[in-house]
């Protein structure tokens, strides 16, 4: 009898979708968002089987996995191989955060010579194995959905998990932070206070946090769909921001996202030309 119950429970457990969380080069902040869902955590744990999530558990259940959440960017030859294994065992693969979707802050190396970086930080550079570039996951394998943010918004994460597991499209808008400012009735910091803000070219998702705290957006959610970076740069320049200032503004946590990369390179080119 007792045996029968355990078996039954076991089969129920097995029928739950399997969730796996994988980490590449990152700060762990995006996966931590899941543990920061204090109110939803036990419910999520009840709805899925947490099959691989080393930050939270020693358990490793064998794949295949229904949903893999991938955090972090590819920066070593070993990781460049490991991501293919992850893809092979995953039915759906969702990348979370600026590291995984745009190479992250560590992609600042992509504009420099990485050997120089190694020499700055490490006494014995030959011990360090690293790639010249930090690249997003989608440069290596097919990705089903990309969730932006540094860090991601935990409510958007819960939405994406439930959408993917229920075979629907996640409701994650690609419009700009400006729209969230309007909705929140925050007065535009650029117009009213003359504070340079990247909100117009940045994807919504944070709820327009920075302007609500009297500062300009620094684009931690990466480029919105079809951003007009050039026109925003012109406006910033009118406000007195230098070419180097513009290069730095676009070289933040999403420096290697195409729209931002191109814009920063344009200003760098002008600097070199001048």
């Amino acid at each position, binding site marked *: 009898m007792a045996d029968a119950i355990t078996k039954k429970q076991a089969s129920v457990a097995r029928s739950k979708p399997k969730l796996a969380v994988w980490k590449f080069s990152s700060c762990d902040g995006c996966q931590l968002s899941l543990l920061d869902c204090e109110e939803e955590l036990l419910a999520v744990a009840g709805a899925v089987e947490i099959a691989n999530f080393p*930050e939270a558990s020693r358990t490793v259940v064998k794949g295949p996995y229904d949903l893999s959440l991938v955090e972090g960017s590819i920066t070593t030859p070993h990781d460049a191989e490991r991501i293919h294994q992850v893809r092979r065992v995953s039915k759906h693969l969702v990348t979370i955060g600026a590291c995984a979707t745009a190479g992250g802050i560590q992609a600042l190396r992509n504009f420099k010579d990485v050997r120089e*970086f190694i020499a*700055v930080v490490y006494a014995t550079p030959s011990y360090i194995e690293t790639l010249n570039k930090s690249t997003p996951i989608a440069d290596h394998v097919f990705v089903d959905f990309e969730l932006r943010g540094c*860090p991601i918004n935990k409510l958007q994460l819960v939405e994406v998990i439930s959408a993917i597991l229920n075979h629907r499209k996640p409701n994650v808008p690609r419009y700009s932070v400006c729209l969230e400012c309007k909705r929140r009735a925050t007065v535009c910091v650029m117009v009213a206070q003359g504070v340079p803000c990247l909100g117009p070219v940045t994807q919504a998702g944070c709820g327009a946090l920075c302007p609500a705290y009297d500062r300009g957006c620094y684009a931690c959610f990466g480029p919105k769909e079809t951003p007009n970076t050039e026109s925003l740069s012109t406006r910033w320049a009118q406000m007195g921001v230098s070419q180097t200032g513009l290069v730095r503004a676009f070289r933040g946590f999403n420096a290697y996202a195409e729209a931002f990369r191109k814009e920063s390179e344009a200003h760098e080119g002008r600097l070199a030309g001048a």
Partner: protein
Amino acid sequence: MKTKTIKVDYLARVEGEGALFVKIKDNAVSEVKFRIFEPPRFFEAFLRGRHYSEAPDITARICGICPIAYQMSSVHAMEDAFGVTLNGGLRALRRLLYCGEWIESHVLHVYLLHAPDFLGYEDAIQMAKDHPAAVQRGLQLKKIGNDLVTLLGGREIHPINVRVGGFYKAPERAELEKLAEKLKWARDAALATIEWSATLDYPDFEQDYEFVALRHPEEYPFNEGRLVSNKGLDIAVRDYENHFVEEHMQHSNALHSLLRARGAYFVGPLARYNLNFDRLTPLAQEAALSAGLGRECRNPFKSIIVRSVETLYACEEALRLIAAYEKPASPAVSLHARAGIGYGCTEAPRGILYHRYRLDDRGMIHDAKIVPPTSQNQKTIESDLRRFVAGHLDLSHEQLTWQCEQAIRNYDPCISCATHFLKLEVVRE
């Protein structure tokens, strides 16, 4: 010759990627390597050429678990370079923000990462099936820490409101008072956590460590103080590099930090507790003593109780700060960049976090040095493992492996910050 290996490729319930390798030959431990294979992210290199005002946002991204610590060390270092000190309401808000991070981070570690070890569960979710009340209490308590960080910082991970010179926006008194109610509940929950953690089983394991922590004339240390130890160290933060040195080992992507004079040392809650017991609130002192901690504690497994005591302290301190809070006239002091070197060291939940920046007269960063707590504990973690394994060779392979992992988790290592993941391998010869 008999050789045996215990191997854990991927240490769970720590932040970042790492491994442990222990080799046992003829019934003696012949080799221990705590290896961090988290790929390097080169923060110190790309901070060069950035403006000082960008440092708190950039360095926060070193670690998602304790971003405030990075923000606090960097803003203090920059202000040191500019010769500015924050007082009054702004200083209080920084302390309050640190209370939030300590609560959130300590509780995450106590309930979700460390307690499952003591009770024999793979994770807190499995533990919740048999101990639902404890896990619920932990989750709620953690949330209150996060609420505090969110109110002052805008969000719990990588807050956006911290700047050199203060904040972008200071909260209203009324907003803080709303949180005070929750913090009163949190204070009771923290007390219950201490009592609960004291009932866990602790291995007999005491060592003669050199503990290093900040010490402030009046307060339990967060952002300021001198660096002291139980073996005679007593220096200003700016002298850090005269006394501490970093070594680069082949087996690890994280640098090992050592005391030039004496080698390995120990930072974090246990160190703070031992060096600053007298600065705890009376309630926290009393709760610690009745939990059987003693005025001094040298058993790293008991760091879970110490974290609970510090959680109680942080709740009480937050309540005190809120009661005394007056909104500052301006959210930040005005600053004038000048060329120079700035030093900062604050008490991250896992221990001291040292930053040093050299700036030019436009406030551009010429070079940066960051020494996170996990680098500083790395040598001590290795020596703990060596001694722990030597004393427990009779344990089964599986038990020994688990306990080695636990010995590492005592330190709550944040490998993302030391550069970030852990891997365990024990060879028995």
